[in-house]
């Protein structure tokens, strides 16, 4: 097990290094002068020259890359060209908003997707299976940017039930400011007993979280269904039935526990992918998370930010993978012993 983890972490480092090389190369061959981004739109050639010198852009690219790696190992991701703030600080500012959204979304996805998949598996090839299949495939087929806009039209414009976007109402933010503990509004307001803000931030979370959850819901439902169908054909399920275990327990405890491996892998990967999935959703619901951060950076070719966030996303993705594999090993005693 330890060897397995060490091997995976080594692999992770390798992937990150590869990612560094690719993004760095891309950022350097992409047209657009970093110095111009740094100075804003009205810069004189001599100023540009000065900034190039300052940022080390005059050095050969491999050397620049070496410098970048050196700083990276010291935990320094550089500074944004646009705001001149350290990228690490920018990530710290933006990450909690994205993570909060992702946590809520993956919870929704699991809570809807898993039962849907289980029920569809139980009623294989019946009308309810077909309908749940239609629903699940539809969930995976929805363009998130379109769904987000539809939600805004229906729930904000027509029904007036939910806010159009943002994390917190301006007035609530002024009258009941949330104390900054973790940056997760739900958690912070709960911990400080700020019920108004808790309600308001939960309310603001609904539409973006459901939008973000849609793809994962469908995927988890499909995965759960196909795994459950296999599991339900297993002999031990017949055994359980033969000794009189109730159908509910067979489905949701004995069966699901066996189907949990693939389902958890799916959910974990969904979670990892959500970090890039938030991209459109944050854009449309003006959610001040990592997606917004990198969108702004991409628009300006703010390469330290792009690189920093991309690295973080890959790191996140690969480590979630790792965690999922470890978790599966914990849940399934068969894997554990191998």
């Amino acid at each position, binding site marked *: 097990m330890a060897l397995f983890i060490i091997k995976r972490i080594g692999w992770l480092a390798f992937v990150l290094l590869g990612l560094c090389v690719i993004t760095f190369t891309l950022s350097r061959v992409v047209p657009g*002068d970093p110095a111009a981004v740094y*100075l804003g739109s009205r810069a004189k050639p001599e100023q540009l020259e000065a900034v190039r010198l300052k940022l080390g852009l005059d050095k050969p690219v491999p050397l620049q890359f070496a410098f970048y790696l050196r700083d990276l190992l010291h935990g320094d991701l550089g500074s944004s060209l646009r*705001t001149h703030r350290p990228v690490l600080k920018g990530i710290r*500012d933006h990450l909690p908003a994205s993570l909060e959204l992702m946590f809520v979304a993956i919870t929704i996805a699991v809570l809807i997707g898993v039962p849907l998949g289980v029920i569809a598996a139980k009623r294989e090839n019946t009308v309810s299976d077909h309908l749940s299949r239609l629903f699940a495939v539809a969930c995976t087929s929805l363009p998130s940017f379109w769904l987000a806009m539809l939600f805004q039209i229906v729930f904000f414009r027509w029904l007036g039930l939910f806010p159009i976007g943002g994390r917190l109402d301006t007035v609530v933010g002024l009258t009941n400011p949330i104390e900054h503990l973790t940056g997760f509004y739900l958690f912070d307001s709960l911990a400080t007993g700020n019920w108004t803000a808790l309600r308001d931030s939960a309310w603001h979370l609904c539409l973006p979280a459901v939008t973000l959850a849609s793809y994962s819901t469908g995927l988890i439902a499909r995965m759960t269904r196909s795994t459950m169908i296999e599991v339900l054909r297993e002999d031990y399920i017949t055994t359980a039935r033969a000794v009189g275990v109730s159908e509910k327990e067979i489905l949701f405890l004995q069966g699901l526990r066996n189907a949990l491996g693939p389902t958890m892998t799916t959910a974990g990967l969904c979670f990892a992918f959500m970090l890039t999935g938030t991209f459109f959703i944050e854009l449309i619901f003006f959610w001040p998370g990592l997606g917004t951060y990198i969108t702004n950076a991409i628009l*300006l070719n703010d390469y330290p930010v792009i690189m920093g966030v991309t690295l973080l996303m890959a790191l996140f993705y690969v480590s979630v993978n790792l965690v999922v594999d470890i978790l599966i090993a914990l849940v399934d005693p068969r894997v554990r012993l191998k």
Partner: protein
Amino acid sequence: MANMYEPLIWVSPPGSAQQFEPALAEKWEVSEDALNWTFHLRKGVKFHDGGSLTAQAVKESFERTMNLKKGASFILSPIKAIHAVDEYTVRFELKSAAPFDRIAASAYAAWIISPASVGQPGEWFDGGQDAGSGPYMIESYKPDEEIIFKKFDAYWKGWDGDHFDRIVVKIVKEATVQEQMLDAGTADLGNRVPIESSRTFNEKECCERLSGPSFMNYAIHLNTAIPPFDNKALRQAVSYAIDYEAMLDIGLGGLGRVGVGPVPFGQFGHDENLHQYKQDPAKAKELMAQAGFKDGIKEPVIFTYAAENAVEKAIAPLLKENLAEIGINVEIRPMIWSAQWDMVKSGPEKAQHMAALLWWPTFSDPYETLYSLWHVEEKPAWNFAYYKNPEFDKLITKAYATPEAAAAQALYSKAQQILVADAPSVFLFDVERPVYKRKELQGIVINPAYPRVAFWYGMHK
């Protein structure tokens, strides 16, 4: 920025008796040769960090900006030396004659900062710190989300009367969302609503639109250094092919006016009598034939615009269509701004054939606009058209050194006539910069010299 910092003087909004009005300087005078400008400072002004306004502070603050060599600090380049004459008097000595009052009123590089903070590196200010003397200071800053400002208690104008204690600036890029927030009353002031809503904005019960000229204008620059646009007749044909009214309508919702020459309406140097191109396909085709392109241009002409600019994005298809009518095949290529700029600067051969550009002056003198965009340059930074005309260059340089307004105007007009005839650029439209507000919000002053600024101090409900 303009609410946290103040310059020595402000440019007055249009319609004022004076061209400038005092800010940190109570009064100022200029020497005969326009080389020495003396400013008498206001007494008892405090900075947010507790420092006081002195001549030394002004000197240091200008010197800091000049040394920083960042952003728009180049507009200070005419300064030869700054002298702190006494505690409340400061004199600027210039290398050459220049309208320094306009420079000192610039919204970009003429802010006065506290001496205590002058030594701080530029990054210090990026972290949400400030050291200005303006009425508001930052209370909290959430990147990409909101900035909360609170009033600066020791502001020199005092807080008698109706003012806001706190101002929340929500960072909302979406025009639709801004409109919704205004409708719902969760915002009092916005700077962008969808073009279609903007047209009918004043029909709303809750809200209204204020607008005025902004000194911003759009133009499409043609690369005059390489074929096909090295041909003057062809360039004129392009200028005749464009449906200006439709573009203004689609791009700005009609909020603006079709451009007359390069200098926007309302700015010093604007000449209403310049020749104005209008859409005239017959004439355009005639000119095409004259230019030797009887059968049109099949080889696609590359047109770039800044992908993040909604106006340029909206008019791009129209441009393609207009030019297709006279037989020019356009390939539209949106690029992020810095990439587009890079392409322009990559040399005439590699540069695009046409590029859209939104321009605004950093200080309100036409020289900057005309010099930056069309003065010959060894390595072009802003001369998108690769325009080269010594006569034009001579005229604007002369005009800049002419302190007397009428004489300068005449020279600028002459230069612009040359430019319009040569047609290196298509002057699309001047932007009217609207602000959108709740009706109950009062006291908004729109000043075209500061196109992106709302002055909060005067506002109240």
